[in-house]
C-alpha cells in the first residue's frame, strides 16, 4: 500500500483552478520530488496532502488515513516544514521545541530538544525569541520542529531555502540517512541540483496539472539532467544543442 496517495485532486480558489485532477502515489522509502514554476500549485498540494487545506474534490490518503476527513490524525504522524518559516514570535527556540513536544506528548523531551538544538547549532542563540532570529535560524527551527517526533513521512516545502551551504549539506546528509532508515519524504523545491541527487521519483506540475511523473532514472535519460527535463516539461524552449 502506498504511504501517500492522492487521487484526482482539484482545488479552486474563487473561479481560479489552482490544481486540476492531480494524482500522485508515493511508496515507503521514496524520496519524492515535486517541481514546478512559481505559482504552479506546489504549496497548495502540500497543504492539501498534510490536511491543512481541503480540496474542492478528490481524495488523499496518508499512511492509510484519510487526510480530508481526519487531518488531525495525519498531523500526529507526519512532519511538515512550510514554505514560509513562521515559528511563534514570542517563544525562544528551546521553548518552541518544548511547546511542540508537549503538543505531541513526546517522551524524553529534554533529550530530544538538546539533540536538535545542537544539530542545528541553535544553542548559541538560546535566549533569542523567534521574531528576533534571522531567517536561516527560523528555518532551522522549523526543520527541528518537524523532525523532533521522528515521523514516518516528511513533507518539506523548500527546505533548503535560507540555509547556508554548510547546513544545506548537513540537511541533505540527514535526509539521506532518514530515507536509508525507512523514512519517506515528499519535497517541493526549486533547487534542482540538490533535488536530483536526493530524489528517486518526481512529478512536475505546470498551471495546476501534472505534466511529468515517474522514476527519475527513467525520466532523466543518459546525458540529460533534471533541469532540462523540468524546462522541457513546462514548455520552455531550449537553445539548440542543450
Amino acid at each position: 500500500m502506498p504511504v501517500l496517495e492522492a487521487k484526482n485532486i482539484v482545488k479552486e480558489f474563487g473561479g481560479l483552478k489552482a490544481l486540476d485532477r492531480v494524482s500522485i502515489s508515493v511508496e515507503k522509502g521514496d524520496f519524492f520530488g515535486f517541481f514546478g514554476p512559481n505559482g504552479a500549485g506546489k504549496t497548495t498540494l502540500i497543504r492539501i496532502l498534510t490536511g491543512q487545506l481541503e480540496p474542492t474534490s478528490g481524495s488523499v490518503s496518508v499512511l492509510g488515513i484519510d487526510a480530508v476527513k481526519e487531518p488531525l490524525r495525519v498531523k500526529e504522524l507526519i512532519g511538515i516544514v512550510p514554505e514560509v518559516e513562521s515559528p511563534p514570535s514570542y517563544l525562544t527556540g528551546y521553548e518552541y521545541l518544548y511547546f511542540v513536544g508537549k503538543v505531541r506528548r513526546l517522551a524524553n523531551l529534554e533529550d530530544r530538544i538538546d539533540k536538535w538544538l545542537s544539530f542545528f547549532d541553535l544553542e548559541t542563540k538560546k535566549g533569542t525569541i523567534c521574531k528576533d532570529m534571522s531567517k536561516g535560524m527560523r528555518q532551522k527551527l522549523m526543520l527541528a520542529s518537524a523532525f523532533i517526533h521522528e515521523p514516518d513521512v516528511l513533507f518539506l516545502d523548500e527546505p533548503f531555502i535560507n540555509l547556508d551551504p554548510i547546513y544545506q549539506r548537513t540537511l541533505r546528509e540527514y535526509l539521506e540517512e532518514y530515507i536509508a532508515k525507512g523514512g519517506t519524504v515528499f519535497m517541493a523545491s526549486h533547487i534542482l541540483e540538490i533535488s536530483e541527487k536526493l530524489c528517486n521519483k518526481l512529478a512536475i506540475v505546470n498551471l495546476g496539472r501534472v505534466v511529468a511523473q515517474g522514476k527519475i532514472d527513467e525520466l532523466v535519460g543518459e546525458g540529460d539532467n533534471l533541469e532540462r527535463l523540468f524546462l522541457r516539461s513546462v514548455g520552455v524552449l531550449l537553445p539548440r544543442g542543450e
Partner: protein
Amino acid sequence: MRTKDLLMLMLKEEFRTHASYSGKHRFLSFPVFVFILSLGSGLTINKMLETITLEQFAVFAHLSAFMYGLSVGAFGLMGREYLERRYGRSNYLVAMPYLLPISFRTTFLGIYLRDAVFYMLLMLIPATLGLVGAAPFMHFSMVSIGLFFVAVLLAFLLGMSLSFLASVLYIRNLRAFVAFTAVIAALFLSQGVLNVPGLNALVPSLGFQMNVQPLGADPMTAVLYAAASLVAAAGMAALSYALVQVRINIVSQSYGDMLPAYHSRVHWLTGLNRALISKELVDLRRSGIIAKMFFAFVLPLLFLSITVWFVNYGLAIPVGFNSVFYAAMVGFIGVMMYNWLNNIDLAEYYSLLPVTVPQLIRVRILVFLLLTLGISTFFVVAISLLNGETELLWLALVVMFVTSLYMVIMTAYLTGLKTSSFLFDTSVLAKFSIMSFLPDVCLTILSFSLFADWTFAVVGIALVLGSLAVTTRILYRGIETKWLRTSF
C-alpha cells in the same frame, strides 16, 4: 512616489485586507448596513425625541464619532507589529521603507490619510446619506445635515489625531505615552465629575454643532469652534508626523526559558490545553499587550465606575444605576479583550501541528476568563461597597459572571480567531449587535426596577440569565462544528 499615489495603494490594500476575510460583497454591504441603520434612526427620530433632547442626541453622536476616531487611530498601535510581521504571510505597505527609498514619515502620513478617508467612506458618509434619505419624509434641512456631517467629521478627526499621537508616543517613549494618556483620561474624568473643563472645550466640534442650526444660530462662535477643532486635529497630526521615529529599531533582547515554568504552574490542566494555555501566557507576558489591554479594559471600567458613583451621589439622580446594572455593563465591556488576545501573533504555525481552530478558541476563552474575572470581580465588589449595596452583591456577581461568559463565547462563536475582521462583515455584525443588545437592554431595564419591585426584577433577571446560560452552552458546543474545518 507621490503621497497621492501611495494613498491610493494603501486604500486598495486596506480594502483588500478587509475583503480577504469576509469576501468583497459582504464587506461592501457594511456601509449599506450603516445607511439603513441611519435611515431608520432618521425616520424614527420623533419617537426618540420623546425620551431624549436633540442636544443630548448631538452630544451622543459627537462622543460616538470621537470614540470611533480614537479606536481607528488605536490601530496605529499595531504599527510595530505590522512592521515586524514583514516576513510573515502578510506584508504591508507600511513596511516598505525597509526596502524602498521611502521614509517612515511618508508611510505614516499615508496611514493617517488612508484611515481618515477609508473609515469616513465606511461609516460617516453612509450614515449621513441615511439622514439625507430620511429628509424628504421628516423635513430635515439639507443645510443642517451638511453642518452635522462637518461637525461629526471634525470630532472623528480629533479622536483619530489624538490616538495617532498617543501611538507615536507609545513607540518612542512608554513613559511619555503613559503620562499623555493619564492627562487625557484625567481631563475627561474631571469633565465627568466636576464638569470642568466644559465638554465643548474638550471636543470643540460639539461647540460648532451647538452654535449652528438646528441647535443654535451663532455663526461667529461656530466658526471659532470649527477652527479650534481643525487646529487641534491638524496640530496633533503634525506633531505625530514630526515625532514619528524615522527608523524603528527592533531591539533584540535575551530571554530566559519561561515556558516550562508556566507549563508546571498550570498543572490543573492536562494534555493539549496545558501546552496551549502556557504558550498563550508566555505570549501575553512577552508581547507587552497586557498594557494595551489594561487601557482597553480597566480605563472604561474606571470611567463607568465614576459615572455610576457620580450620577448616584454627585447628581443624586435616582435613575437606578445600581451594582447589578454595573455588573451587566462590566460583562459587556470585557469582550474586546478577546479581540486583543487574537491580535498578539499570527497563528499559522498551528496548522503544522495536531491542533484545531476550535481547540485554540476554547483556550483563548479560558485565558480571557483568567485575565478578566479577577479584575471584574474587584470592580463589582468595589462599586457595591461604594454604593452601599452589599445586599445586591451576590446578584451583581452572578450577573457579571454569566454576561461575561455569554459575551465572550458568543463573540468567539461568531468571529473565531479573527474578531476585528469579522466584525466588519455585515451579517456577523448584525448577529453580534442583536445578540448583545437584546440581553443588555433587558438586564438594564430589570436592574433599574430592582428597588421598585424586587420579586419581579429578580425573577426577570433569573429568566434572562437562564436564557443566556442555555445559549452560551449551545454556542460553546457550536464552536466545534462551526470552526473545525477552518484554516488558522
